[in-house]
């Protein structure tokens, strides 16, 4: 790391404390680096600044300079005199300039905040008991921290429409809206889907969709996240659970190779929602709506809740014994998955080696990328499969080669990890010719007759790591316990590899990482615990030059384009 160039820094003084920030940083950001909170509603670090809520008013001053001579004017103590502006300024739209002085704790600032709070609360319905935002509501928090604590408003409050459907996933309660316009700016600036706006004037101002339009883009739920109050709520999460019961667990969105960082919100073993986790190098503070619905797979109808052997539910050790017996007979082929975690892929490679160097097939899952946070590669961990050496070329779109091998009678036992073989190009007739060991979280068509079924865990039920399209290793943690009959995938694979190969295998993310760091050059010196929350980019070397399918997306350019070809 080289030290940042000093010329880009400006020094401001906030509440008597000096801080050097890059040029162009606004005062809210500068203050937050000092640990000073300047309350704000409309400002969002990833959106444009409009300055319409007026909550972030602070006192600002500049060192005084005699206009005639250009010399500093000194005060009685010999320091430079500060010229305080008679009126407060909004911190969000004020960029730091050298020598700037900011006061956030004076009587004037306090009165400003009380006044703003009072006006915001005049028409606010105060229905916190039924409001989903309660508990994570900026209005609640700032009313407690900066409000006057009682209401002087005795007139009747405004009545505005409640329960308005803005789109398939978003509900609007206009009474609660404080007109910060974050949602409008988001729609304009991030998904470029300009559907929201204000109509009417004064206290009748109302947020609404443009006529004939709906807030239905795949990023609509981000408006719910950034809404500082409970005006925009998620139809899915609405009235499900109060947020203060929910425990947040850092996780990764598995819908595509972008690997958006997420929080999984769960209570007592049940997941209630998924929200984005800020990572300025991957997803900023956004994520796609489609990724937020993935938690439903945990309690899906076709979830595998128990291991099976010969069609009967059995405990995991028994199913493993049956699988080992099959694998020992030889003529094995393996269908791996880019949906498995890095650790699982590493262990699957060990299984393949222990099973007499069984060939490993992967199948590609592609779709259309939206240029933002859903990429063309719809698996979270294809680069992990390359890095661990599970495969060394990009996977084909179908498993024709495997089908041919089955037809030629070269495959007697097929290990399938998290793949739908019929969709991947195999026929039912081919499936009937082999005995199948199926490691998965859900039932798959065509695999009902699998000789052994090993029930694994979803990404929410285990810990591990993925490698996203930037070759960024990102880890996810266990949010909820898995079903009683399922076992950790790592345990299942480690047991298979150990039983076949006769040597002990690591079976926790931390121990697998020890082995990976020793074997794989890209991971040298890394540990599972050492992976930072926002991930770490590894050196991919030659692999980075493979013709990946992803197009450009937020914070990602394909290697070819980046090279300027």
């Amino acid at each position, binding site marked *: 790391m080289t030290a940042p160039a000093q010329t880009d820094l400006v020094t401001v003084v906030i509440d008597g404390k000096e801080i050097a920030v890059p040029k162009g940083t606004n005062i809210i950001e500068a203050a937050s680096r000092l640990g000073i909170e300047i309350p704000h509603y409309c400002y969002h670090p990833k959106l444009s600044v409009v300055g319409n809520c007026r909550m972030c008013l602070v006192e600002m001053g500049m060192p005084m300079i005699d206009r005639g001579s250009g010399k500093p004017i000194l005060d009685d103590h010999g320091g430079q005199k500060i010229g305080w502006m008679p009126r407060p300024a909004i911190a969000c739209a004020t960029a730091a300039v050298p020598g700037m002085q900011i006061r956030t704790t004076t009587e004037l600032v306090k009165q400003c905040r009380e006044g703003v709070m009072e006006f915001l609360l005049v028409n606010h*319905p105060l229905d*916190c*008991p*039924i409001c989903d935002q*309660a508990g994570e509501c900026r209005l609640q928090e700032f009313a407690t921290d900066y409000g006057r604590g009682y209401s002087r408003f005795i007139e*009747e*409050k*405004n*009545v*505005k429409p*409640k*329960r308005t459907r803005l789109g398939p996933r978003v509900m609007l309660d206009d009474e609660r809206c404080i007109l910060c316009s974050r949602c409008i700016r988001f729609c304009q600036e991030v998904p470029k889907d300009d559907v929201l706006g204000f109509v*009417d004037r004064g206290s*009748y101002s*109302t947020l609404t969709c443009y006529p004939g339009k709906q807030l239905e883009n795949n990023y609509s739920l981000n408006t719910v996240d950034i809404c500082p109050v409970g005006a925009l709520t998620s139809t899915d999460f*609405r*009235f*499900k*659970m*109060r947020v*203060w*019961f929910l425990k947040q667990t850092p996780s990764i969105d598995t819908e595509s190779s972008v690997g958006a960082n997420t929080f999984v919100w769960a209570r007592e073993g049940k997941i209630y929602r998924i929200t984005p986790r800020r990572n300025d190098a991957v997803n900023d503070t956004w994520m796609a709506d489609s990724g937020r619905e993935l938690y439903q797979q945990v309690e899906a109808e076709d979830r595998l809740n128990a291991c099976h052997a010969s069609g009967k539910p059995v405990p995991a050790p028994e199913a493993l014994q049956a699988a080992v017996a099959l694998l020992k007979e030889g003529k094995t082929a393996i269908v791996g998955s880019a949906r498995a975690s890095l650790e699982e892929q590493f262990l699957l490679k060990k299984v393949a080696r222990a099973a007499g160097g069984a060939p490993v097939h992967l199948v590609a899952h592609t779709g259309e990328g939206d240029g933002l946070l859903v990429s063309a590669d719809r698996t979270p961990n294809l680069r992990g499969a390359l890095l661990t050496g599970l495969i060394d070329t990009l996977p084909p779109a179908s498993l024709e080669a495997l089908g041919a091998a089955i037809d030629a009678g070269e495959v007697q036992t097929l290990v399938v990890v998290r793949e739908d073989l019929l969709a991947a190009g195999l026929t039912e007739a081919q499936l009937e010719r082999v005995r199948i060991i199926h490691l998965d979280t859900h039932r798959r068509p065509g695999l009902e007759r699998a000789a052994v079924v090993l029930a694994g865990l979803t990404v929410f039920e285990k810990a591990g790591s993925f490698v996203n399209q930037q070759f960024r290793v990102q880890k996810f943690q266990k949010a909820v316990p898995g079903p009683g009959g399922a076992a950790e995938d790592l345990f299942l694979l480690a047991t298979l590899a150990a039983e076949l190969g006769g040597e002990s295998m690591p079976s926790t993310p931390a121990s697998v990482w020890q082995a990976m760091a020793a074997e794989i050059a890209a991971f040298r010196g890394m540990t599972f615990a050492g992976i930072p929350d926002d991930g770490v980019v590894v050196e991919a070397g030659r692999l980075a030059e493979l013709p990946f399918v992803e197009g450009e997306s937020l914070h990602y350019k394909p290697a070819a384009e980046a090279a300027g070809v």
Partner: protein
Amino acid sequence: MAKVIPRKPLTLAERTYLPQVLGGLKTTFKRMVSPNVTLEYPEERPVIPEGYRGVPTLVKDPDGREKCVSCQLCEFVCPPKAIKIFPGEIPEDAPTAHVEKAPRDFQIDMLRCIYCGLCQEVCPEEAIFLQEIFSVTGYTRSELVYNKQKLYELGGTLPDRHFKWEKKRQAAERGHQH
């Protein structure tokens, strides 16, 4: 240094124990002829003092609207975690649709409840009250997990001073609407 407390030696009369025994007999005889204090429970019931904390119950307002909006604050505050709420939405065609939220089910485990009254104190809708019921019996544990219906049966209707939601509905009809 131990402190020595001097004791007065007993007199001859005291050493015969007889005066004390007679004094005791006098005392017990007085008790014998004084009125009883027993409350013969199933027939006679104690007067429940104001502010008594009995079984927590859900109440309806005088209009018959269920007051609970399932904000789950009581569930949060409950020290023994006796309360479990399943929140739900009021359908848009219901007469109280403007309240939007109501519990689908509301369970209080009376075996866990410690009658602390925090739920009543925390309730922003004045929907849960520890009323006068003090006798809770049942044959099974599951029987003593009172559900919403049972809690409303026990709670009945209490007078309301605010009519918060009714005022809200009237305001919506009268309208500061644009």
